[in-house]
């Protein structure tokens, strides 16, 4: 069964450093999403991406964040200058259409020191 994969599973970084979280969505899906879950809190939407551009973003997704689909398979989330409060589990998801079932990857746990 096709699945969404994410690398790395755990990333530790120093405050102010740049990080890139990588995702490989399900191959025939067209809509891609990033969510995050701060420890003990609910899963929150960050950004959706379709047709090589951001289609929607939340207020969390400020100028420090960017997303890219550098090739036909990868979907990345970059945090330019990490802050302590960026520590969270980041989930990538993909779907075949807006409103269709989103399939989630296993997540990347980001720890900012």
């Amino acid at each position, binding site marked *: 069964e096709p699945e969404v994969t994410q690398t790395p599973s755990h990333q530790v970084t120093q405050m102010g450093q740049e990080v890139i979280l990588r995702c490989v969505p399900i191959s025939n899906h067209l*809509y891609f*999403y990033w*969510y995050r879950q701060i420890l003990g*809190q*609910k*899963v*929150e*939407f960050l950004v*959706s991406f*379709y047709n090589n551009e951001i*289609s*929607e973003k*939340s207020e969390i997704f400020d100028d420090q964040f960017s997303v890219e689909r550098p090739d036909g398979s990868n979907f990345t989330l970059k945090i330019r200058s990490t802050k302590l409060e960026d520590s969270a589990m980041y*989930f990538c*998801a993909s*779907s075949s*259409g*807006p*409103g*269709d*079932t*989103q*399939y*989630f*990857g*296993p*997540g990347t746990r980001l720890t900012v020191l």
Partner: protein
Amino acid sequence: AQSVTQPDIHITVSEGASLELRCNYSYGATPYLFWYVQSPGQGLQLLLKYFSGDTLVQGIKGFEAEFKRSQSSFNLRKPSVHWSDAAEYFCAVVRSYGGSQGNLIFGKGTKLSVKP
């Protein structure tokens, strides 16, 4: 604005007992509703979904959920809980206004513990 409420933060049931996890949503039209499960250290796995049609939907692992428009609810049920069901359960609704591309709005989750 759309929202999802899971009123129970933590529930403990005995193995073999029945389970019902509550979920209430706020949305004017018929929503697209989902239940996901997250085992410790794992990602989110889809249990079941409701888009339209039969209001009782069956999912994986013996779970089912019933959509009740009159109560704005989408409660998750299982007749007999197994120890492996211990996890956190999230109810979610697709955001569908303002030109949204369908991002999910999650509830805060209900943590399920199972007693032997």
